[in-house]
C-alpha cells in the first residue's frame, strides 16, 4: 500500500495523456512530502529525488509515449512508483547482517542516544547469537551513570541465563577490558558492552567511547537508534560514525507506527548497514534487517 503522497504522485501521472518532464516534477513534489513526513533526512530526500528524476525523465516519458499508441504491461505511473521503490531498496541495501568474530574473545559495543534501547537490545542480541549463531555471550554492564542500569542488565541476563560482568568501580574502560579477561575464564567467546546513553555532542562521553574502543578494539560497534527519530538521525549517526567508525546499526521500536525514514538517512550518510531491528520489549523480539520490509513502510 502507498502513502497518500505516493498515491497522489501516481494519480498525477495517470491523469495525463502523455507525460512530460514537468509532470514528473509534480509527482516528485508529492513523493518529497511523503518522505519528509516519514522522517527521511531533508538533504537525503533531495538527493534521492534527483536520482529518481534522472531515471524517471528517461524511462517514464518514453513509456508514456509508447502507451499512447498501444497497451503496455505496466502503466507509466506504476513504473514511476517502481523506480521509487527500487531506488529506496537500493539505498537501504545490500543486506549485511553479519557480525565479526575474529578474536578468541570477540566484542560487540552498543552505543547510542539516551533511551534508544541499548540495554534491552544488548540482552536480545546475547540471546540471538547464542541461539542462532552458537556463540557463548557475556553481557558487560558499562553504564555506570544511569540509576539501576547495572540492575537492569543483571535482571535481563538472569532471565536469559547469560552471565553479566559488572563492577562497582565506576570505570567503564576498565570494566570493558577486564570483562574480556573474565570472559576467557568463563569460557565465553563474545562480550557485549552495554554503554550509557549519551549525546553525540557530549565531548567527554564521546571520548570515553573512543577510549573503550582503543583499549578493547571491539570488532563490532553498533549504533542503537530509535526508529521514531526525526531529522536528528543524520546529525547523531554521522558524529558517532566519525568518532568511532561504526560497523552497523540497530533500529528499535519498529513494532510501533513510526515510518522509520531515519533508516534511509543513516545508511545513506554513513554507508553502514542496518543489521537488526527491534520489534518489541520481549527478549526474543529482535530480527535481522530486510530492506524490502522497511522500504514499503517508508513508502507508506
Amino acid at each position, binding site marked *: 500500500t502507498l502513502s497518500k503522497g505516493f498515491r497522489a504522485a501516481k494519480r498525477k501521472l495517470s491523469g495525463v495523456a502523455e507525460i512530460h518532464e514537468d509532470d514528473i516534477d509534480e509527482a516528485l513534489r508529492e513523493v518529497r512530502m511523503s518522505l519528509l513526513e516519514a522522517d527521511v533526512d531533508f538533504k537525503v530526500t533531495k538527493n534521492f529525488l534527483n536520482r529518481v528524476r534522472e531515471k524517471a525523465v528517461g524511462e517514464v516519458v518514453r513509456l508514456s509515449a509508447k502507451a499512447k499508441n498501444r497497451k503496455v504491461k505496466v502503466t507509466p505511473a506504476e513504473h514511476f512508483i517502481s523506480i521509487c521503490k527500487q531506488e529506496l531498496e537500493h539505498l537501504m541495501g545490500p543486506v549485511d547482517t553479519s557480525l565479526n568474530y575474529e578474536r578468541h574473545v570477540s566484542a560487540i559495543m552498543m552505543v547510542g542516544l539516551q533511551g534508544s534501547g541499548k540495554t534491552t537490545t544488548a540482552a536480545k542480541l546475547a540471546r540471538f547469537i547464542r541461539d542462532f549463531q552458537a556463540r557463548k555471550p557475556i553481557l558487560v554492564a558499562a553504564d555506570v551513570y544511569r540509576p539501576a542500569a547495572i*540492575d537492569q542488565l543483571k535482571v535481563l541476563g538472569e532471565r536469559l541465563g547469560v552471565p553479566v560482568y559488572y563492577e562497582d568501580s565506576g570505570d567503564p574502560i576498565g570494566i570493558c577490558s577486564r570483562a574480556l579477561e573474565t570472559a576467557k575464564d568463563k569460557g565465553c567467546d563474545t562480550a557485549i558492552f552495554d554503554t550509557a546513553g549519551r549525546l553525540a555532542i557530549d565531548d567527554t562521553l564521546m571520548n570515553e567511547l573512543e577510549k573503550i574502543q582503543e583499549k578493547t578494539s571491539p570488532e563490532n560497534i553498533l549504533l542503537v537508534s530509535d526508529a521514531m527519530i526525526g531529522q536528528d538521525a543524520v546529525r547523531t549517526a554521522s558524529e558517532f560514525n566519525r568518532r568511532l567508525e561504526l560497523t552497523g546499526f540497530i533500529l528499535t521500536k519498529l513494532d510501533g507506527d513510526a515510518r522509520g525514514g531515519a533508516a534511509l538517512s543513516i545508511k545513506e550518510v554513513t554507508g553502514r548497514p542496518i543489521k537488526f531491528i527491534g520489534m518489541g520489549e520481549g527478549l526474543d523480539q529482535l530480527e535481522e534487517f530486510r530492506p524490502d520490509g522497511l522500504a514499503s513502510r517508508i513508502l507508506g
Partner: protein
Amino acid sequence: IFGRQVIEPDVLEELEEVLFTADIGVKTAQALLDRVQDKVSTKKLSDPKRLFSEIKQEIENILALPSEDFDISRGNPFVIMMIGVNGTGKTTTIGKLASQLKEAGHNVLMAAGDTFRAAAVEQLAVWGERAGCDVIRGAEGADPGAVVFDAIQAAKARDADIVIADTAGRLHTKVPLMEELKKIKRVAAKGTTGAPHEILLVLDATTGQNAINQAKIFSEALDGITGIVLTKLDGTAKGGVIVGITDELKVPVRFIGIGEGVQDLRRFKPREFVQALFS
C-alpha cells in the same frame, strides 16, 4: 512544496530547510506559511528577514498557551500522572519534578507505577533518594493501578500533598497497554477526588513526526492530557514537532528536560524555544 509564487524560491528553500530540519513537519510548515501569507502583504513577504520574523511570531503565538503553576490545593493529594512511549524520560523527569516541588516546600510521594520493566522500580527508588522523597512500591508485577491507589492512600496518611505516578513506557499502538493506562486513571480517580489532576505526556525532542500520533492517541485514550514535557532538548534535536501538536491539541508544554541531572528541568518558555528553533 509551497506552491504559491509570492515568495522568492531561494528564500522559500532556506525557510523550508530551517523548518523541516527542526522537525516542524510538512503540514505544520504549510499551515504556518499560509497564515503568514494571508496576513502579510506581498511587499513585506519579499523581504526574507520579514518573512522569517513573521513565521517566528506565528510559531510563538501557537506555543504561548496559558500554563500556570500547578494549583496543588485542588487535590488531596494532588496527583500527577506521567505517561509516554518507551525511553522518553518519564522516570527521570519524575525525579527532577519531585525535587523541584520538594524544594518549593511540598511533601511529595512517588508511586512506582512501572511494575513491568526490568529494574524500573529500583531506578525510581534512586531518584527518590536524590529528591529526598519516599517511593511507594508494590510487589513485583503488581497491578500498576493498585500501586498508584496505595500511594494516594499513603499520601493522605502521611500528609503528603503531591503524588507523582510513574507508568511503564508503552507504544500508543498497543491497545491492551493503552487500556491498562485508562484503568490506572480510573483507579487513581477512586483514590481521591479529581485524580489524576495533571496528566503529563513526556515526549523526546529527538522524535520525528510520530510524536503527533503519540500525542493524539494518548490524549484520546485518557480524554485529554493536561501538559507536555519535552525532554532531551540539551541535544541537537529541536523538538519542532510540538508546534503542530500544540496547534492541534491546544495542550501547553509545561516543562523541558535539558539534561540527566536532578536540576535539569525548566519551565517552557515559547520565545526561547523559537529562538533555538531558528538558531
